């Protein structure tokens, strides 16, 4: 007996974003990276987490943007913020001081210990691909209470060891964050377009703990560049609700563009 392939009325990017949004609790403070993290955080604030306190590295604290910001320093972030502070202040007095509950990051390359590379693919001195670089990520990964990573799943992105550690996840395993003086707990969830990975409490290695509806464990393994461990019974992500999809599409659809 073969399973009939069901067609969903949402995309893999959409369930990734919805799953990421659900990772944010109401009332949390969240340091938001641009791109997918920003979409997910704004979705959370418009659904289950109306008191999510969003902070962007451009210095906008407690911002409530009327539409999705197009860049990290979009004017819509400043207009609605509790306060707008300078870049040194956002990093020193807010992030470094340990005031932010969750950091929301993307990645170009991610390894089995959730270390992040956004610098180069290949050798640093003679790179195959030159990526944008660190931005705020190293200190977001170091100082937020925890880190949630959103990244599309592929064997090119999910590698055994990143070519360059731009931002530390769990280093090479247990005790590394403490040894490095990193105060936050580090990545607690990696949310992809296929499922959810979490660090094993003992080894700190990323383990597949959940899959999105219609995704098989073998598909996730094939899209992962190391021998991915899987929990006994991976959870299946609840499907996006009509309300979640409606808000998400109002944020990202063509009508949201100015």
């Amino acid at each position, binding site marked *: 007996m073969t399973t009939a392939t069901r067609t969903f009325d949402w995309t893999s990017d959409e369930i990734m974003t919805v799953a990421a949004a659900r990772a944010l609790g109401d009332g949390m403070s969240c340091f938001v990276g641009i791109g997918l993290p920003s979409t997910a955080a704004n979705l959370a604030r418009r659904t289950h987490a109306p008191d999510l306190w969003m902070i962007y590295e451009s210095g906008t604290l407690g911002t409530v943007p009327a539409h999705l910001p197009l860049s990290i320093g979009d*004017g819509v972030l400043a207009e609605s913020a509790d306060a707008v502070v300078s870049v*040194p202040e956002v*990093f020193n007095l807010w992030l470094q001081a340990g005031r932010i509950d969750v950091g929301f990051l993307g990645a170009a390359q991610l390894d089995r210990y959730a270390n992040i590379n956004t610098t180069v693919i290949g050798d640093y001195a003679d790179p195959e691909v030159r990526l*944008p*670089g*660190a931005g705020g990520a190293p*200190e977001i990964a170091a100082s937020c209470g925890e880190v949630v990573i959103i990244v599309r799943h592929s064997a090119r992105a999910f590698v055994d060891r990143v070519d*360059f550690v731009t931002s530390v996840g769990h280093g090479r395993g247990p005790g590394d*964050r403490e040894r490095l*003086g990193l105060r936050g707990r580090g990545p607690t969830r990696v949310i992809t377009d296929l499922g959810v990975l979490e660090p094993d409490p003992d080894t700190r290695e990323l383990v597949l703990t959940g899959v999105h509806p219609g995704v098989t464990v073998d598909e996730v393994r094939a899209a992962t560049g190391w021998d991915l461990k899987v929990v006994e019974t991976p959870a299946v992500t609840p499907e996006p609700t009509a309300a979640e999809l409606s808000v998400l599409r109002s944020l990202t659809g063509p009508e949201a563009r100015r």
Partner: protein
Amino acid sequence: MIAPLDEAIAELVHDGDTVALEGFTHLIPVEAGHEIIRQGLRHLTLVRMTPDIVYDRMIGAGCARKLVFSWGGNPGVGSLHRFRDAVTTGWPVPLEVEEHSHAGMANRYLAGASGLPFAVLRGYSGTDLVGHNPHIKTITCPFTGQELAAVPALNPDVTVIHAQRADRAGNVQLWGIIGIQKEAALAADRVLVTVEEVVDTLEPVPGQVVLPARVVDRVSVVPGGAAPSYAHGYYERDNEAYKSWDAVGRDREAFTRWLADLTAAAPAATLEGTAP
């Protein structure tokens, strides 16, 4: 104090200088960057937290020998192809790279503005930035024994920023997302500010930063000088311009044509004095 942009650049920026054009997404001094290209300046060490299309253009035009930065991309679009080309193939000239995190760069400017030789931060620990950048060191707290990161002060020869307004004396006012402009200006030996307009009196605005005239060397009136970025209260970001840059920057020939067009056009400020 108030001078046309071409004169101000000629006076303040010289070959080999360390030059910072700052503005965190907002108020990017794009026209000043174009004028640096037009004047054919060379061997610059360009400093900027977020090199975007203005630095892609300056790098493609061959102005820079080194880039000091923390995030280099075309925000919301993708890569900076001229930057990539210079780093990976050395076209049109090799580009040395010194890279930091945003927190590191912000603290380097802050130390520079504060007259300190270095800054201390919780940062970089465990990252490969440490091994690839000799300007990141470790320092031990003399009270607790904790190890922290140290980065050297950044003191550009020239900082260029764009602001909404200045008064006739050269006091400068900017607001909205204020970024790193104050620290970058106060860290520099010389400061050029391009502004949307010069007014008689700077009416106070909530969230404003005021740079007193005594730390400003030249003000140039360049309306729209931050486009395609935006000037809060004046104009919005031109997202199409960022997107369309991708195709131009991706191709050396298309870029070379763009550059020829730019350098052929006389700067706005001197148009009236130029023969046809």
